[in-house]
């Protein structure tokens, strides 16, 4: 299996998917805004909002990451309202988003212990009208994209129109389109992009549009269709003041979660963010974002204006950032790492009365840390499990591979371990809800297509069973065993192995699949094993079942009876 090149991955995305993104490219000459070498989440989606309260509009610039064949590319986004006429644009440089990311990312440095200071440096033809029950609001070619904005009360008509016009819509996408189409709270429109016949995947660029309204929203629910586990999402919001999540939580990372790796000279910040969000989902069923930075824009504007671009690409990036940032007083940067099962709603953002948030953070080191210089400092400061995010349905346990301690994931019943790429581009593994597979062996991806094969054929999970997830083999480890991942010649593989120390039984007792909201589709049913003993686990399944309130106890006790779920 090649990485991120399966047709489903290419076809079903709502935002770009899991394709490795370019780090800030090394340049011979370094000028101002492009000097930063701050590590960023290489796998994250990046979305920039610029709110214009006077005009009552919001510019939305979305990075589109994609690997695959040009013919398979499709990008479908639900919108409450159609973009303003003439606002569609594909000229915002990727380099601008990348540079903004690198210059606003949290900067962490160890404090105390053996090190006192950080040593890092700075920084188609237009058409309008009704067509078979579908209203075509916009149809135009924008850069490399053939763009359509359409609406209909009939989800089947929408899907048929998109397919008739060669926008790739898989069977898995149809229920989500129906969910938005039939939502009584708004007349949702759909923005659909495909590459023009002259364009190739190398031409894919961020897409920009101006939308009515001043409350930014990330249309995330459809992303669940093909999201990699623990997918990073970075949201930048330019406006008059700080912004924070409205219907999601504004989460903070406790100091004690942040560790320092002296060998790689970096922190575990992305994993700490993932841990905070996973805990919030597990405890209260509420996902959230961490505000990584919130500050007036003047520093960035000065930096941009004092930047000497090294080439035309940098000059274009500076120009684009100045254009979007000038006139905006404040910038907020928010970060989340989410798996498909956590994408239960579309996060909306509101103005905040909160204070500025500095991007500088200290990592507190143990006071009694050994500073002998023999490598023990690294062990004292952090362990392998500090640098992995197993997801809300998993927990980390160490194992030993070739004599080295490595991090592995134990997954709850109903979850499976999937090899993926971490925020630094490293191979990692995470637990994923088995219900979130929307394309399965035997399914027909598009009408008339051949049934899909079983990607698990010939796959050996070791102490576990292969489970196909969106046509990728994953491993559901036997209870007590843990998963590790590897990639060889572009092929991902997952293995279930014995942990160095037993996985606490309390993990399996306390971690169960949450009830899936009735309005959101799941890809398939999952047979759950017989419930573990609840002695000491604080269970009360009878009352939970009696409440009849779906989601009230989303991560507790709802999967105890043997049942099939959809």
């Amino acid at each position, binding site marked *: 299996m090649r990485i991120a090149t399966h047709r489903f991955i290419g076809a079903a995305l709502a935002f770009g998917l899991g394709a490795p993104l370019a780090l800030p490219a090394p340049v011979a000459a370094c000028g101002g805004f492009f000097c930063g070498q701050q590590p960023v989440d290489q796998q994250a989606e990046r979305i920039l909002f610029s709110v214009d309260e006077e005009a009552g509009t919001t510019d939305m610039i979305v990075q589109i990451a994609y690997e695959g064949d040009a013919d398979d590319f499709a990008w479908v986004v639900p919108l409450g309202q159609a973009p303003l006429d003439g606002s569609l644009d594909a000229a915002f440089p990727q380099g601008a988003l990348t540079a903004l990311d690198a210059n606003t990312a949290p900067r962490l440095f160890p404090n105390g212990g053996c090190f006192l200071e950080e040593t890092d440096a700075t920084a188609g033809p237009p058409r309008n009208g009704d067509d078979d029950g579908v209203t075509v609001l916009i149809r135009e070619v924008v850069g490399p994209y053939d763009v359509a904005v359409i609406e209909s009360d009939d989800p089947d008509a929408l899907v048929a129109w998109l397919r008739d016009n060669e926008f790739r819509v898989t069977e898995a996408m149809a229920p989500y389109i129906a969910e938005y189409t039939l939502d009584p709270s*708004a*007349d949702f429109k759909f923005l659909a992009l495909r590459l023009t016949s002259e364009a190739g995947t190398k031409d894919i660029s961020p897409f920009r549009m101006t939308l009515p309204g001043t409350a930014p929203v990330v249309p995330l629910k459809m992303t669940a269709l093909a999201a990699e586990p623990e997918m990073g999402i970075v949201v930048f919001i330019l406006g008059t003041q700080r912004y924070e999540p409205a219907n999601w939580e504004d989460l903070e990372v406790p100091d004690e979660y942040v560790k320092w790796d002296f060998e790689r000279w970096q922190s575990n910040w992305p994993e700490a963010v993932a841990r905070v969000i996973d805990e919030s989902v597990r405890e209260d069923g*509420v996902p959230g974002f961490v505000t990584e930075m919130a500050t007036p824009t003047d520093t960035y504007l000065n930096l941009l204006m004092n930047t000497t671009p090294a080439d035309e690409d940098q000059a274009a990036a500076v120009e684009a950032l100045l254009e979007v940032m000038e006139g905006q007083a404040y910038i907020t940067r928010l970060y989340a790492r989410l798996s498909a099962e956590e994408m239960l709603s579309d996060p909306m953002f509101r103005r905040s009365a909160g204070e500025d948030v500095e991007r500088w953070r200290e990592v507190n080191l143990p006071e009694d840390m050994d500073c002998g210089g023999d490598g023990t400092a690294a062990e004292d400061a952090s362990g392998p499990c500090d640098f992995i995010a197993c997801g809300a349905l998993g927990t980390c346990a160490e194992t030993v591979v070739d004599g080295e301690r490595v991090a592995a994931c134990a997954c709850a019943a109903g979850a499976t371990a999937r090899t993926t790429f971490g925020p630094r581009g490293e191979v990692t593994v995470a637990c994923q809800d088995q219900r979130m597979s929307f394309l399965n062996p035997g399914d027909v991806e598009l009408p008339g297509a051949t049934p899909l094969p079983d990607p698990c054929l010939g796959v050996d999970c070791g102490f576990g069973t292969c489970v196909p997830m969106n046509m990728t083999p994953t491993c559901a480890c036997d209870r007590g065993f843990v998963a590790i991942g590897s990639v060889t010649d572009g092929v991902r593989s997952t293995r279930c192995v014995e942990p160095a120390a037993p996985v606490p039984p309390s993990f399996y007792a306390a971690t169960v699949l949450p009830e899936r909201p009735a309005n959101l589709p799941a890809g398939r049913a999952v047979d759950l094993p017989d419930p573990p003993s609840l002695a000491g686990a604080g269970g009360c399944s009878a*009352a939970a079942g009696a409440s009849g309130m779906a989601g009230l106890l989303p991560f507790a006790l709802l999967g105890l009876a043997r049942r099939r779920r959809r």
Partner: protein
Amino acid sequence: MGTQLRRGALVAVLAFVGCGDGVDGELVLVLGQGETAYAELDDGTELPLVAGPQGGHHVWIAMRAEGLSAPGAELLVDAFPRGAADPPRRLPVRTRFALLPDGSWERVGWPAEIPDALCTVDTEVMVRVTLRQGGREAVDERVVVPQGGPGIGACMR
């Protein structure tokens, strides 16, 4: 504050005793307004409609509560023309309240979606919020009058 909270609450119901959170006290909810801070909300208050770029229109509401045993709770937020038959209830969502120094709880800046919003401008809309936790439930409601503004279109009916 406690007196104010109780005055505003319409309903507080102990639904059942079972696998709850061990708290037997009354759950009290007071519906307020505010995107960034809580403010009282009287019946008939004019509230600006806000267009979410991808999510219809809403007004910002805020809530204060007493009797919560933990931050996490479940909300159902309904909005419908005053005098209309109660609409089909929206699905519950999970959220978290912040604990105030006096022991009460607060949630600020919640988007109460207004169906068919553009046609409700300058009309009376009932906003009803149901708070649930541990088998207990509290309901509060207010009549608000949505207002147009920048970026808010006109009713096309």
